């Protein structure tokens, strides 16, 4: 390995958790101490300077986000920091790894972020099913309180922060930051209009920052090693390392920390070991279930927000889902649309009723009731569900795999119409 892996360096191969003592031995909580010795605005400047972009999917600059939080005398109190650990994006399992194996890294990151925005209270909003993580995080939080790393007068200084672990009830939409806030307030998990942004009016109407687990985990290292170091980690335009994952019928599915800008080929063929024998790569969703398909021609692109964007998809969470040539793309997309239709919060019409509409058309295709004009209807609907047209980003994300499948795998769709159903299934049957 010719690069650093600060995020996962402490993670044990056997999957055991890193204890507080072990964490401290490996320079743990030093970043926090450095942060506490700085002006909070200086912390923001440093993080801005480091070019840390949000790892939750949108890639927004973390430092910039923090800088929108009103500061100083007379601002609304309390202010909140929320760690978004809802991780329910199909194919995504990176935050889980970080939380299960090195919870203190996240806690340290949260305290640093909270300090930077002068937050009084922090919530860790955890996916319901992450039971191991919940247990380990709670233990780590208790330990951190015990040692004065959380609570009043952290590290003996003047800064205080209360941190609470909240386990979600288990809905994908709870990962959308404003729906998360609604849900944390005890309301229906329905997103909120922006503006006003959470930084101004968030949890309980107070200034709030929501950051992804992985985003926050980078902070201790940036504080300790500086912005230039962080920038130097990336191979391309983007700074730092990133947890990349691969799922699907590859030889070695998994999750690895690599520099930003690592090429897709290196991840797919190098780390994931390429396709299983007898299978060919047909396409892949580069950043989780709500990103557009890319295909073989894109293998040499670097995993950078810009490069993937230019190719017509999104970096998303950086966790790829791979489609092979013997799996039906229509079926795969149907499966995803089904998920998203089921996870729709029900607030806005295009998503609430449009996704079931698409699901219906895809089911018809799969089961031989598709009509030639359905392809156009589906494409039409994908445009209808486009960014800005719906109340939040769930529906546009849901449309991405389908809209790109219609582009790259059009023949498969047409075959479904012409052959009266799923050709892959027919093939499998024929093969016995």
């Amino acid at each position, binding site marked *: 390995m010719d690069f650093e892996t600060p995020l996962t360096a402490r993670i044990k191969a056997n999957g055991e958790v890193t204890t507080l003592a072990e964490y401290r031995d490996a320079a743990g909580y030093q970043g926090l101490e450095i942060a506490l010795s700085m002006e909070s605005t200086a912390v923001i400047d440093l993080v801005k300077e480091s070019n840390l972009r949000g790892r939750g999917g949108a890639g927004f600059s973390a430092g910039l986000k923090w800088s929108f939080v009103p500061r100083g005398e007379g601002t609304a109190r309390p202010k909140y920091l929320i760690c978004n650990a809802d991780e329910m994006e199909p194919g995504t399992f990176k935050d889980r790894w970080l939380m299960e194996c090195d919870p203190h890294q996240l806690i340290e990151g949260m305290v640093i972020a909270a300090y930077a925005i002068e937050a009084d209270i922090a919530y860790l909003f955890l996916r319901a099913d992450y039971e191991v993580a919940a247990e380990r995080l709670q233990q780590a939080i208790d330990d951190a309180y015990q040692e004065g790393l959380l609570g009043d007068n952290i590290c003996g200084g003047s800064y205080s922060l209360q941190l609470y672990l909240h386990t979600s009830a288990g*809905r994908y939409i709870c990962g959308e930051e404003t729906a998360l806030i609604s849900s944390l307030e005890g309301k229906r998990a329905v997103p909120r209009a922006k503006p*006003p942004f959470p930084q101004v009016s968030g949890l309980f109407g107070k200034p709030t920052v929501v950051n992804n687990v992985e985003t926050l985990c980078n902070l201790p290292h940036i504080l300790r090693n500086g912005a230039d170091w962080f920038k130097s980690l990336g191979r391309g335009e983007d700074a730092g390392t990133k947890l990349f994952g691969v799922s699907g019928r590859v030889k070695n599915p998994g999750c690895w920390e690599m520099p930003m800008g690592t090429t897709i080929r290196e991840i797919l063929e190098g780390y994931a070991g390429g396709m299983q024998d007898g299978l060919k790569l047909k396409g892949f969703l580069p950043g989780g279930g709500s990103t557009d398909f890319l295909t073989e021609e894109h293998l040499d692109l670097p995993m950078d927000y810009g490069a993937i964007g230019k190719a017509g998809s999104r970096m998303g969470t950086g966790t790829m889902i791979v489609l092979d040539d013997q799996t039906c793309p229509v079926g795969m997309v149907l499966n995803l649309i089904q998920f998203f239709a089921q996870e729709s919060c*029900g607030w*806005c*019409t295009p998503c609430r009723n449009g996704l079931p509409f698409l699901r219906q058309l895809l089911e018809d295709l799969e089961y031989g009731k598709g009509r030639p004009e359905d392809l156009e209807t589906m494409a039409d609907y994908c445009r209808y569900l486009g960014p800005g*047209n719906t109340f939040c980003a769930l529906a546009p994300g849901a449309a991405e795999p389908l809209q790109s499948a219609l582009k790259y795998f059009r023949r498969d769709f047409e075959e479904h119409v012409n052959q009266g159903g799923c050709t892959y299934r027919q093939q499998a049957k024929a093969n016995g």
Partner: protein
Amino acid sequence: MATIEVDGTSYEVDGDRNLLDACLGLGLDLPYFCWHPTLGSVGSCRQCAVRVYANAEDTRGRLVMSCMTPVTDGQRLSIRDPESQAFRDKSIEVTMANHPHDCPVCEEGGECHLQDMTIMSRHTERRYRGLKKTYTNQYLGPCISHEMNRCIACYRCVRFYNDYAGGKDLAVLASKENVYFGRHEDGCLESGFSGNLVEVCPTGVFTDKTLSRSYNRKWDLQSAPSICSSCSLGCNISPGERQGRIKRIVNRYHHDINGYFICDRGRFGYDYTNADQRIQHCSIRQSADVTEEAPDYRDAINAIAVELAGAATGGNLIAIGSDRLSVEANFALQTLVDEDNFYSGMDPVQHQLLQSVLGIYRRPGIHAPTLREIESADAVLILGEDLVNSAPRMALSVRQATRNLSFELARKSQIPLWQDTSVRNLAQDRRSPLMILSVAGTDLDAIASLRLSAAADDIARLGFAVARCLSDRAPAVPNLSPDLESTAAGIADCLLRAKNPVIISGTSCNTPSVVESAAQVAMALSLAKSNGQIRPSWLSYVLPAANSLGLAMLQEGNDDNHLERAMQRVLANPGQCTALILQNDLYARAEPSRVDAFFGNLKSCIVLDQQPNRTTDRANILVPTQTDFETEGTLVNNEGRAQRYFEVFATDNPSLRDNWKTIANMAKAWVNPGTGQGLPESLLALARCENFDDLIALLKNRGGLFGHWDRAAPNAAFRIAGLKIPRMPHRYSGRTSLRANIRVAEAKQPEDRDSPLGFTMEGAPINIPGALTPGFWSPGWNSGESLNKFQDEINGHLKGGDPGLRLLQSPAATDMSAATSSDWFSVPAATPTAANGRLLAVSLPRLFDGEVLSALSPALAQRAELPQLEIHPETAAAVGLVEGHIATIRLESCQLKLPLRFNPRVASGLVAVPADVKTAGILPPVLLPAAVTIE
């Protein structure tokens, strides 16, 4: 102001609005579902998409939801561009995916916003082939039907019911495409404003069950501008009639009063007019056991005239008016018998309370605010009223007033005020101060910053103490506990700090000191806030009935001509007097044994009424009267606004005439047979009244408050394009065949010589004066949402002007210090603590069964709680009462037995008696507050 360009045309619009609001305000057509003019924007339906362009060079533009996009100066947008049209088409397509398309059997059909918007969006083709979702409907009580399959999930219902009206028992349940709008289980919707769901819901999910019993389409309902007579606020309503029956009532927008919403009492309380028990014919009782039923109307009037003439010559004629009937009917009666012989029909306390209120309203430094103004108040002090039950629509306004803090916070955070969820999320449960002093707690307590229960006089004392804190010229309150002193100081401070504080009180406590203390606070506040210029304080009184203030105006300055005085006169001259009683059941007005004595000592009793009651039982001559839906008149609401209502339909019963007309006919009959000599000119003038405008002219001649009486609404000569204003919608069907079973030849439509409205569908329903607008309809806008075509801007005034005439103009800035110093009211003594088993009984107003006529509506009767006596558990323990037991209250000859309920919000030492009409028949609320024995 901002200039925007819509599809190439430039317009000036209010820069604080959103694009949808602005476009609709300009009269443009743009479809929407989830946005509502008062509920604001939430961006859920995605139906209002338009294209906006960044600048002059931008040709591609960007699709936005117009309801979520603020107006900015120089903005260019397109409603008609193909892409946004296609988007809106698609939104309808998905909206309709699960919709049952059951318009033919849907009661919303013909006034359905979903139908209208579907057509406006030009969606015609159905592509969805899947199964439709279906839901189980719920039983929601006697007023509202539920058909969830028609839901388009616009979220308006829950936003109105919960967020706006504070309801608790309607919710959105489940998620994704399964969202369900209903209760946690079947059961009657609890909110007193639930009826608005019928209008708020753009589809046929929530419909009016009372209309459903004998259904008609909107286009088959005849309507006229009407005023709710179920409380003193005067909400504007539009009743719909077919074949002689009122079928339903919908809200009629009034900018200053009800806005978009009315209460359930006003909406569902109309059934008294259809009641089988209605008095239909005249009757004359020849002797104790011989009654001539149904004599000819003329004969009855002639017989009355003979009685009147006879009694008048001996100075033995008296008349008793009604605070529920129009100014004109009361005025006609007053003119008929002469002012000195006309009595208000109110007991002395109430009569004097109303004179006192009228006097206070006319003081300098006092302004009687509209409900719209109350909504804008940033601090509210309520003395002795349980608004939800005594003036329901005002409770809704006060609820909105508590949101003014959130608007202030939103302004600071630069959140547009129309962005409803954002504003609510920002404020959470922070509210503007609402301070409630009541005898037994109120339904608004949950959102009050201060709530305190006390006996009426103690409420008043606290009020006086507040006044004293505001101005040391006000008299001090002796013997006030330090606790209450500091409460008073807190209230005063809060009022002082507010920009637009409002003080609300009323007659529910039936206690002069309460009314006076509210005035004292208002005057002291004006003084405290004055710095050279006096800004009048907002003071609003809730009054007992729809025309309490109008009646008080007819008797202005007369503290004496109340019911008790009439009784004394009759009892002093046994067997001499003839009484003419206008729709007023005296048994609810005084101690029943005294009323018996009154009737027993009359020579003759003439009663005009619509419903049988104990008073009509005592009539020698009984003449039926029309309900407010059948006649015209003017009511003066609690803020002193004269509002005209018009007959919705013409009855074909020859005995049923306009109330004022029957009285004028009596005058005519009295004068005619050559007995005219020597009669007062006013009586002769009344006898000459042929139509309503003649009577208005007489009233106008009285001058003073009545000097502009003709301005309350245009007179009968008013025409638009030479035509009367149609009461029927354009598509009114079956007019010629409705009566074919009686006579095949087409009957001539009745004529209306008393108003500019016609019983017809001919006439242009455009540019109609607000006061004459029967209801709202516009091409392509068949539902009530068509209102936007009648407003000068969204939420604004009716283009035809706000209905009614404010009689009490608040005085120009006067030098208050001179005017008030001698006019302070004096402070009552504290209420003595209950002794030897006696408690102070107080009366509690009731929403569903507290008003005589609306209580006759079966739907409301079903919703009323069982009457119970309420008492604080500690008070109960002190006098040895047990919850659930039947307690007996004795007061004079009245004996009331009701079950006992513990309610910790009832002030200590009190027992609260429900003022439902049944209980009131046994123990009239006017006798309270009074010390009673209870066991």
